[in-house]
């Protein structure tokens, strides 16, 4: 049995399609309704969790494989997993965004930055050798500049339409994000055949699509 922890929401839908294209049994996922755990004919057990919890389950070896966004991997301080494959879906990027006058404005003192990803923001500004004040918001980070609380935001950008609707624009792209297949390190030692069977089939589908 291989237990696979999937990030709920959009990632879950992308992964469902990929596994279906691989020829794996996905019927129990289609009919799962509110169940958090389903078993399939391929001897997989899928569990559905929030992104950071996928990592916690991998860390404790409670899941063998995990499907999670690169954004979560970069923000989380757990690092001891295998990142087997870039699934090439869920593509977006981290960016610094603000009102257009950000580029020319002269700031007195530290800039204030709103973000859901304080570690990413901290690393970005330390690479830029800039000292900023980071304010963590839990969602709709764009509100930071909109209500005048912060000078800019560090956030995930997909289409940029929320930014645009609020008069903000991308000042700089920070890094690319996509969905990744990860594994617990010990699981890979004991279930390498089962896991690489999944990896190979996924890899084939990804290559055909790109």
């Amino acid at each position, binding site marked *: 049995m291989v237990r696979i922890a999937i990030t709920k929401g959009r990632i879950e839908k992308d992964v469902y399609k990929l596994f279906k294209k691989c020829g794996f049994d996905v019927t129990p996922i289609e009919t799962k309704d509110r169940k958090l755990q389903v078993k399939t004919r391929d001897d997989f057990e899928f569990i559905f969790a929030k992104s950071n919890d996928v990592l916690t389950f991998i860390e404790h070896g409670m899941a063998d494989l995990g499907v999670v966004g690169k954004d979560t991997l970069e923000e989380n301080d*757990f690092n001891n997993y295998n990142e*087997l494959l870039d699934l090439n879906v869920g593509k977006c990027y981290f960016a610094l965004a603000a009102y257009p006058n950000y580029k020319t404005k002269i700031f007195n003192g530290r800039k204030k930055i709103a973000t859901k990803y304080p570690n990413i923001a901290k690393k970005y500004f330390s690479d830029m050798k800039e000292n900023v004040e980071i304010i963590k918001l839990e969602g709709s980070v764009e509100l930071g500049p909109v209500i005048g609380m912060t000078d800019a935001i560090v956030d995930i950008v997909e289409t940029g339409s929320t930014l645009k609707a609020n008069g903000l624009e991308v000042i700089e792209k920070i890094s690319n994000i996509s969905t990744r297949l990860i594994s617990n390190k*010990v*699981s890979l*030692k004991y279930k*390498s055949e089962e896991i690489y069977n999944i990896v190979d089939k996924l890899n084939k589908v990804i290559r055909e699509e790109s």
Partner: protein
Amino acid sequence: MLLEEYKYLIPEESNGVITQNVKELRNVETLLRTIFEKYNYIETLVPLFEYIDLYKNVYTNFDEEKTFKYIGKDGNVIALRWDFTIPIARHYFSQSTNQEARYSYFGKVYRKEKVYKGRNNESYQAGIELINVPGIPGNIEVLEILQNLLKNLNLSNLKVELGSAKFFNRLCKLTGNKQKLIEILSKKNISEMQKFVEANNNLSEKLKYLLLKLPRLFGDITMLDDIIAKSEDEIILKSLKELRNTYNKINCKENIVFDLSMCPSMEYYTCLMFKVYSPYSPEPIVSGGRYDSLYKNFKKDVPAIGMGLYLNNILNALEKEGSI
């Protein structure tokens, strides 16, 4: 706070008083002690306090934030014991001779772990250091002790995995990008390796072929022999044949596997590295390796090899397997 509230209030860093599996812990300890003594290892009591600069001088990327520390009487920063290898190395340097030495240890190391993730800040370790027994004879002695104690541990389906820091360092040299290689190999990242090879067209075809396979190069002796047969680079061949020779001389071979993408978990590893896995532990239960250059930092050019056993992981595995 009222005194009675301390019945349930304990610091975040603490695990409280433990009564579970203490007897089993002592039994494992006794088993290990008996074996270490049989091989003439001298048990050491290692201090709890060290200058943090000692660690920082040895580990270039030492993560100071993970240590428990305070400012000592002399105004310098003191760290609670972060590992056993460095204090034992310091002890050896303080001796005037360069003789063979065998040390064992039992005790806790103190590292600040993430909160609310079910991790311990105090972890119980046991281990040995074998100093100035170079090359394969030293490797064999340590691996034999390891096999001997694993046999007596009541854990089944263990894997003893060998890797080579020399092989890894050669690849770093050939590609000229150690940082990237660590990033890719420590995560066995197939997609990133593909991108890396495509971006480095100047590498030789043989090397590209090896790199592309590398994230999946772990397995039994046939995997190693296959790569030896296909390799031409002199240092790569030498490092792999060293692994092969070590394997040849091990008495008990059935649980031995190899991982050529193993990255040095300690930057001072120079040749053989090894880890022991149990299907009942999400992390290795033993980790070790040869570190011939560590002692050079202290102006004593002697080779050394050591291993540490993570007793918390061993006890958890024993419990899950139903052996406790």
